[in-house]
């Protein structure tokens, strides 16, 4: 799978209150959540982003609450994947569980600038910066996580085991 789009760059410790403030947690609809994505940092984000665009961030992306509404809102506004230097633990689980593509790459987080054109080869974890003509690698997913992704997410994996 190839993901392609513009990069939207954010800093370290982007937390779930910024990704989707609590006042919007009165729904579980990904599309509706998507209209408020990143509201805590940039209230215009969901209007500016186009389908396929990527979020690129620093350390500890998605820290704070366990709200799955955070990765859902990112998916809901059309973002194709999140690349970060590191992810907070619960966000990492949630991303895998709901099928949001996430890539951990220190070099990509450092090298990619806002609005760079990026192409990601999801199966190989290869991140290409088309604007700067650079290639970054992402940390390979553990085998168990790949198994979950291959099964189509946690619920499918659980269903196959029942």
């Amino acid at each position: 799978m190839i993901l392609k789009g513009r990069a939207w760059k954010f800093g370290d410790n982007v937390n779930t209150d910024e990704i989707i403030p609590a006042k919007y947690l009165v729904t579980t609809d990904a599309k509706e959540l998507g209209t408020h994505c990143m509201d805590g940092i940039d209230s215009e984000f969901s209007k500016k982003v186009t389908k396929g665009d990527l979020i690129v961030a620093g350390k500890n992306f998605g820290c704070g609450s366990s709200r799955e509404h955070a990765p859902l809102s990112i998916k809901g506004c059309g973002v194709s994947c999140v690349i970060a230097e590191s992810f907070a633990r619960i966000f990492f689980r949630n991303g895998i569980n709901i099928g949001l593509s996430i890539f951990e790459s220190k070099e990509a987080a450092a090298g990619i600038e806002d609005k760079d054109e990026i192409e990601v080869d999801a199966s190989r974890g290869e991140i290409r910066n088309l604007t700067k003509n650079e290639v970054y690698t992402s940390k390979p997913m553990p085998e168990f996580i790949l198994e979950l992704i291959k099964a189509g997410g946690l619920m499918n994996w659980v269903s196959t085991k029942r």
Partner: protein
Amino acid sequence: MGYTITEKILLGHTDVKKISPGDFIECKVDLCLGNDITAPLAISEFERTGAKKVFDKKRIVLVPDHFAPAKDVKSAEQLKVLREFAKKHQIEHYYEIGRMGIEHALIPEEGLAMPGDLIIGADSHACTYGAVGAFSTGVGSTDLAAVFVSGRLWFKVPESIKFVYRGRPNKWVGGKDIILFTIGEVGVDGALYKAMEFTGEAISYLSMDDRFTICNMAIEAGGKNGIIEPDAVTLEYVRRAAKKSGRKRYKVYKSDKDAEYSEMKEYNVSKLEPQVAFPSLPSNVKPVSKAKHVKVDQVVIGSCTNGRIGDLRLAAKVLNGKKVHKDVRAIIFPATQSIYLQAVKEGLIEVFIKAGCAVSTPSCGPCLGGHLGILAEGERSIATTNRNFVGRMGHPKSEVYLSNPAVAAASAVKGRIAHPEEVI
């Protein structure tokens, strides 16, 4: 090589015979938790699988506490989803408004979290129950749905960091100050994916309420779980709590002497001052003496972090016979109905009302910017809650400072951040 307490509990809940950090294992879950924000998502995922029955109606806890009592029509709809699911599946531990409490205060109080248990909660502060010597961690809604179906969940065995606290904490210094200081030292991702094991003589001086506060905020350092080995204080607490749940058996685990830790951190807390976390990260910590210039508009005392009876007693001690500053509104949230009742019996609520505080029914309320005390643009609150991220309590241009209940109460009187000794 020996095992840590965290590893021993995980090992006790899985089929494999030995584990080491980094291993992916599947574990049996003793108890799982959802609230009015996270459970509706889990319920729809559960139903999507076509499952007709939950794995065990006695091992699921559902608590309407975030937007409860319902703050608007949409949240009323979410609360209804929770209520109807609880009814349909005869969930034993569903707590209706009027009988509920903030989940992380309620679960241990009801005797549902016991030493040696493996507990997951679709709420990041589910790490609180580590204070009774359980392994407990926060997960997402889909994880919760998987447990509803199977009673099992996958875990990556975490490395452990051992925190050793020496000395005896000063008067006015408690669990909140120790954990804020620690987060200030290691940073908000200092324990990312790791178990935080809190040890040392300073911990043994602390009440269970203080220990819950410490484990509650492990997530604020990125930790997977916080945990404290049970001692006499723990066992006395669980003996009383078990009377409510009727739980008879539990298992006390302790770390082996030759257990392996990825890091050891040692602090002497005997000279520690009360701590205050400045906006907008819980790691932005300073001693209270460096915060006295900060004026506040609102004071919040409560939450899963500091809404227990010991916290209310501390606040009342400071507020007794005093008045809340004319430019400040102070709002107090007893964390559970039992705590509320106890506070009524001890005369604490009278102290609060005479001082000019608002006292609310248990709710997460303003901690997550939900309701019952949202901040306007430019306003500032000191709160005994757990997060001070941008916009956490309301407007993106409002500010939250985190402290212990005595500092928050003193600040309510002074109208600026204050040390309790300035008031008493």
